[in-house]
């Protein structure tokens, strides 16, 4: 596995993300407001308004990947925030009170935007942040959609987008530019299209690109969709993946099985987990997580289209809808088995997995397993326990062929 070459594009991403963070650091000097936002938030509107969007979730993921989530968390815990709260939130809150900043300081906001499409944790964390920084807080409320989309929800979201635009106009002191929004949406469409073309190559046998590669390359789709830089980046990545296809360079050396993985990876153990799957000749090919950014906006009806795309995200959908979504991924990528990560940090993606494992197994006949850990915090990580779950799964896979 160590023979696997890194993507050349990785260097480009590092540079791009460096620039992105530098922009954030200098925004204040330039009089550009810094806004906190969440991953499933219509950031296109903020880009169109010329506001710098900053993602505290990324800060959490970075701290987790650098294995310092527990250290930052202790500062939050000392203030009474419990260790069973979301790991990202504990990193973000902890850093505020920390005397040392192992991944740099979290960027202080001028205004906070939040969406509860993903979970109820983000609003509570961001409310606490708005109290701490004493800045305005705006929630885009996104009630859960059952099996079919509802006009009631779309209309509510559109109404709120209009409220948000008025709120932004007050902040920037300028009328909102819908022409600019159309351009940002076009760029966002292009970014999502390229990203999903790259993800789709995981269905090839053998595949040049897998879930763990996607985890590495996803930062721009989360933070910078709607910018020309993100389009350039995924164009370059797509070219490199095509080149690998032509040269026959696979994502893992001996791909025998394709696996579906739910959901966020174990950031502090990303390499360990990816090596573990590869050592059993398993390519983790697909996850609803990395596929979340698959938006397609209609430029003729921007607000309605933003509302539909963002409220209809899987994490805001019913039990049955999510089962169907997983099964569609199984089919599209031709997976041989599925692994479901019950993540202490993330109730909306984890509660229900115990039942879903057996339903998916019954409906598809594919072997599957659930394991418990935390996406951020190594105090909730037990290698032995995870192996005790995954080893029998790997054996099942081998015997099913």
């Amino acid at each position, binding site marked *: 596995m160590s023979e696997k070459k890194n993507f050349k594009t990785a260097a480009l991403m590092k540079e791009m993300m460096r620039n992105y963070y530098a922009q954030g650091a200098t925004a204040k000097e330039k009089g550009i407001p810094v806004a906190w936002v969440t991953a499933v938030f219509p950031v296109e509107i903020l880009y169109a308004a010329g506001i710098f969007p900053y993602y505290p979730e990324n800060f959490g993921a970075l701290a987790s990947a650098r294995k310092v989530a527990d250290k930052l968390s202790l500062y939050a815990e000392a203030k*009474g925030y419990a260790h069973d709260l979301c790991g990202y939130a504990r990193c973000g809150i902890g850093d505020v009170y920390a005397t040392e900043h192992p991944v740099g300081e979290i960027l202080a906001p001028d205004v906070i935007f939040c969406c509860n499409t993903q979970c109820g944790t983000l609003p509570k*964390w961001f409310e*606490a942040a708005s*109290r701490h920084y004493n800045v305005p807080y705006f929630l885009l*409320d996104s*009630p*859960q959609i059952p099996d079919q989309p509802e006009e*009631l929800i779309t*209309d509510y979201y559109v109404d709120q987008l209009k409220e948000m635009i008025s709120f932004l106009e007050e902040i920037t002191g300028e009328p909102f530019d819908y022409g600019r929004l159309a351009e940002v949406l076009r760029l966002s469409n292009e970014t999502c299209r390229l990203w999903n073309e790259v993800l789709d190559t995981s269905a090839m046998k053998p595949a040049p690109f897998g879930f763990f590669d996607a985890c590495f390359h996803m930062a721009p789709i989360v933070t910078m969709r709607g910018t020309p830089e993100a389009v350039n980046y995924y164009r370059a990545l797509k070219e490199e993946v095509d080149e690998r296809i032509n040269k026959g360079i696979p994502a893992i050396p001996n791909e025998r099985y394709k696996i579906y993985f739910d959901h966020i990876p174990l950031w502090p153990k990303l390499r360990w987990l990816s090596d573990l799957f590869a050592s059993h000749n398993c390519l983790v090919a697909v996850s609803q997580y990395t596929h979340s950014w698959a938006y397609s906006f209609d430029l003729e009806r921007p607000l309605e289209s933003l509302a539909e795309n963002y409220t209809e995200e899987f994490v805001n959908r019913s039990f049955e809808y999510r089962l169907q979504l997983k099964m569609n991924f199984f089919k599209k990528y031709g997976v041989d088995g599925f692994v479901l990560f*019950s993540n202490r940090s993330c109730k909306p993606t984890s509660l229900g997995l115990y039942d879903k494992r057996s339903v998916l197994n019954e409906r598809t006949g594919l072997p599957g397993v659930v394991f418990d850990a935390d996406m951020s915090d190594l105090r909730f990580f037990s290698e032995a326990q995870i192996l005790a779950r995954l080893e029998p799964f790997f054996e099942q896979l081998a015997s099913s062929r």
Partner: protein
Amino acid sequence: MGIEVLEVIKQASANPGRQVQEWKQRTGGKVIGFLLTDVPEELIHAAGFFPFGICGGSVRMDRAEVHLQSWSCSYVRNSLALALNGKLDFLDGLIVPLTCDSIRMVSGIWKHNRPLPYMGNYRLPMQVERPSAKKYLLGELERIKRGLGDYRGKDISEEELIRSIRLYNSNRNLLRKLFNLHECNPDVISNKDLYTVLGASMVIEREKLNRLLSELVKSLEDKTKKPVKKTKLYLSGTFINLPEILDYLDESGGAVVGDDLKNGFRYIEADVAETGVSPLESLAIRQLKKIPFAGYDVPSNPRRYNLVKEAQRKKAQGVLFLHLKYCEPENYDYYDNLQALEQAGIPSLRIETEFGETSPGQLQTRIHAFMEMVGGENNVREKEL
């Protein structure tokens, strides 16, 4: 007479299923359960159904743990465990208010494992001050009203809804009177009895409840006990789930004078206007103006300041935080609530419990110590004014 009525109510609370089953047998009606508590029960009642509040209970939790992680909310796990253990078999339907992640996720899990003929979510808005909130909420209430009407086979009429609103207002008014009696003179009705009655109000037939409460209030009003000085406390959190906590307060001279609990004063604080606007709009307005809780903060009335304001208004000498383990919304609010209280010089104690827990032994010591600290000499039992 009051004592007898209180006994009837207490028994209903101790065995919540029995009353509702008797009602079902007698009337052939249907029972719609709800998880606590923002669900607009008036709509359920207007359709002729029995609204049944699922208030937790003693049950083996292990059957729920096959479906829900041990680090999810214990109220949600306990409720599901009740259903899986056959303790809610009288339910024909269920409405789940989506106020946090655990509750939002249990809805689908419940439906998968114990499907009921009528199942729905109440998706209350999580921001309440922008105009979009009210417009959306009206649509959401209309959707629930339509769904209940469809289940019954006949739309809910405006007259039916107004009738139910009146009944519920009357229930709430009586319960508020009871709170007031307790506040003026805690010896008339103890902390434990007060909250027991409130809990029972979610599981007793509402028409019958009105009769029982009227009698109870009347008999207590007649009591001419001399007020005894007690240590006034405000409760803050999601639920009061262990009645023993109220015993510890009673025995250490504490009197609860207010709370923001889902199964406390927050449940009965606001009425639904009977005139002026449409009944559905009245229901919406009530929801938007509820006492701030952990579900979302209200910019014009932040919870922490509301907490301080209420504690001061009620002259509470301390605040007791009742938190459920793994309750994220409460935990995210706690630090700032505590800061606000400390700045106002109000002492507090945070205790963490779980539904399904059986041995609250240590809590007694902690609560007694806190009471001694905040109340000082007031806490000498039965000390006359």
